[in-house]
């Protein structure tokens, strides 16, 4: 099975406060560290597991610049067979549709059976998978947390829906799936693994290589554009209880009793 996984590089936000820079044009990036978007990492692990079972190959692709090579290498160290960087000045400022159009051009260069994306990213909106599927006119399922390959024509997938329930579908190949976290346990990528792939040449495909009209992507092709970043004005918010722990507990108990919080 030929699998393409669309990944992106994203700031690691787990322990870091994201702050807006002075003029609101961007977030403060000096102290951020980047890694592969968490959801994408699950998608790559899933692709590797499917390949190991069914044969074929896993290709990871990202739209970006040389900084983004690191995530391609990381996922190759994890076990992806190929990596492709889609990079062109004209790609800058693309919206979800633009990114999907670029990816679509790459998809059409080869016969992929399955395309995986992460279900979302901390700095994204969970749109590329659905848009790409529609552009390719392939079936799509989002928030996939279970995959069982039935044969080379169809697979069974589970979607994570409300209440912790799982919606099961049978879906024909080729298709596009967006992968939810928790679908597997991604393997560890150590420094040694990354070093092993450090000198691999990552092919770069430009707008010309992909046959993309420059005006259809990038800023000029985008119908949604980010104007600025700002810190949302906080509403009233909670009444913060102050004082010694003893006093706070006194006040809290008052509230609990009044609202029926203690039986």
């Amino acid at each position, binding site marked *: 099975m030929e699998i393409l996984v669309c990944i992106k590089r994203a700031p690691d936000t787990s322990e870091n406060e994201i702050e807006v820079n002075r003029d609101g044009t961007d977030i403060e990036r000096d*102290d951020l560290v980047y890694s592969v978007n968490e959801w994408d990492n699950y998608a790559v692990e899933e692709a590797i597991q499917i390949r190991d079972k069914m044969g074929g190959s896993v290709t990871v692709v990202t739209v970006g610049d040389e900084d983004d090579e690191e995530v391609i290498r990381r996922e190759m160290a994890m076990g992806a067979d190929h990596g492709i960087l889609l990079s062109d000045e004209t790609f800058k400022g693309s919206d979800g549709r633009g990114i999907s159009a670029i990816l679509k051009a790459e998809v059409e260069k080869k016969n992929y059976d399955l395309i995986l994306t992460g279900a979302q990213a901390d700095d994204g909106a969970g749109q590329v998978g659905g848009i790409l599927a529609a552009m390719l006119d392939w079936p799509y399922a989002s928030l996939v947390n279970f995959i069982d390959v039935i044969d080379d024509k169809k697979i069974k997938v589970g979607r994570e829906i409300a209440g912790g329930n799982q919606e099961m579908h049978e879906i024909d190949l080729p298709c596009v799936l967006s992968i939810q976290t928790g679908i597997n346990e991604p*393997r560890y990528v150590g420094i*040694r693994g990354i070093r092993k792939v450090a000198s691999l040449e990552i092919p770069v495909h430009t707008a010309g290589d992909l046959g993309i009209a420059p005006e259809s992507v990038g800023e000029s092709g985008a119908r949604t554009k980010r104007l600025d970043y700002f810190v949302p004005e906080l509403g009233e918010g909670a009444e913060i209880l102050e004082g010694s722990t003893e006093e706070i507990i006194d006040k809290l108990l008052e509230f609990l009793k009044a609202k029926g919080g203690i039986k």
Partner: protein
Amino acid sequence: MDAALISPAKATVLGIPTVIFSLLIPLVGIGIFTYIIALRLKPLVKASPDPRLDRLPGRFLKMLKYAVGQYRHPRYKDAGIIHILLFAGFMILSLRSTTLVLLGISDGYLLPGMDGILGHIYAILKDFAGTFVLGACLAAMYRRIIIKPERYAVPAKYGKEHTWEALLVLMLIMGLVTCDMVFEGSLAAAQIQSGLKPEIMGPMTGTWLAAHTLRFVPVDLLQNLHLGAYFSHELIFFFFLCFLPLGKHFHVITSLPNVFLMKLDKGTIKPVQWGVDDDQLDELESFGVKKFEDFTWKHMLDFYSCADCGRCSDNCPANAVGRPLSPRFISIKCRDYSFMSNPLKGKPVDGRPFIGNVLEEDEVWSCTTCGACEEECPLFIEYIDKIVDVRRGLVDDGVVPQSLQKPLNALEKRGNPYGKMEKKRADWTKDLPEDVTVKILKKKETADTLYFVDSITSYDDRIQEIGRAAARVLTAAGIDFGILGPAERDSGHEVRRFGEEMLFQELRDRNTDAIVKTGVDHIVTADPHTFNALKHDYKDVPPVAHISQTLIQCIQSGKLRLKPVEDPNKIYTYHDPCYLGRHNNLYDDPRAVIDAIPGIHRVEMAANCRDRSFCCGGGGLMLFYEPIEEKRMGQVRVEMAKAAGADVMVTACPFCMVNIEDAIKTSGLEGEMSAMDLVELIDRYMITEP
């Protein structure tokens, strides 16, 4: 000298000279034995290298002390004494057994030098030895059958009981000794009957007893007994010889070399591959142990040498709290796997994957590397290096528990397992009083001593208190010190011990650079893991001290003066951190520091102090790992302190503090018991006003 009985070298049975058997039995026995040993050595020859022939005089002395002198055996008193008796008896009797074998070929053979007075002394000595061995065997059987010490039990998941093996060997030993007694006793009895002077016998020994009981037995019967006993001895002897390398009694053969070849450097971790420098590691195809054949030959010899005595697992904290780890069975399982892969006959069992069948992932991650097993093993079998090697293999294959991946990735990106920003690494100093200044060492900001803080003290809210206490104490002692601040990275101590060698080396190299740049002459740390890392894992850094060493010096020199304890009724106990005590032999300094506080009442957790300290649950990455366990190690430890009557547990390690404070809470002992770091204790009791 006329013989009272015909010797095995001259006798005939049904017209066949028995000397044929005397020749045949040893030939066949030695042949089979050689074949088995060759098979056993086969995997060792192909194994990874492991240089062990350095510092030979030291090795020889250690072998004398620990293998011949059985120095560690009496740590378990009953079993230890029985073993020492058995061993000593065995050493004496081995000469006799060799003599006996040759006696069957050449009548009246004596080993060189044994024909004079020495021979007579030896004859008596071996009579007593044989009798003691017999007694020791009976005592051992009693223990195995009636007392059944718990540590010999085999949990169901590890297979069947091994008791039969122990009993069989005890019976073989008793058989050997008894046969010799009958062999010699029958001759002596016949000699007495014929008015000849028998060899001198130790009074009241087995031989003496046999000779006296058999005195009235007719000579022809004695002759049969004599030959029968001889050949029984012969058969048992060679059966025993060939039986040794089939199981746990292989240690009879391997223990001397195993102790001679022991690991000499405590606290260290073996390199990924001996003979491969750090800068050549990238060229290695594979890292660590992924299959049995990846172990070093010495580690395989360890497996062969395990006597199944269970002392390691009896002291293993992971085993004690029900984690899926028992060091004893690491050895036994690997030994059995090696035997099955090189069977005496037939084809080897097809190569099942080693991890998942012989060793389990959970088993390998459960170890805190506390070193209690290695401290206890009478034969110096190593466990930590093996576990680290298997972890290296798992890390290389990406098989790392999810709970460890986040901190490892954070260590890679941020130099600390929490993923906190580098620039906040010195934030803990902000709350210090004005007169305590912590310099951040740079090119122009220098100091004599570097205080290496490490990640947990830099970032953990509670442990930052220890850092601040250290800063106050060092200031009060007049030590010119500073920290690396944002330039500091995690020491990588646990990173290395969790098998991520390359990440460790990156951290080490960055720290080494930063330390060397500061130009300091000394390093001090309050974290035993950091201490161990800087001392054993780093090269080319200034000498490092644990703060307990600095404290005792300052107290003794009068730089630090202490006021009397506030509440003389409070009972303190000291918990030995593994990486201070067992791995670095620092037992006395921290105790001396506590005892320097006037009026303080300190007790020991007698059965579990010093080198038998019970691990708190592990530090570094172990804080992130979610083990399968029935109980927290910290809780067990707190119970020990409670049993000792302690109100305050003093420790000298930030991770112990986390685990013990946590255990005090979860055991519902809050208010009753508290934990304190040694530095915090001194911080409280030092006299600051001049």
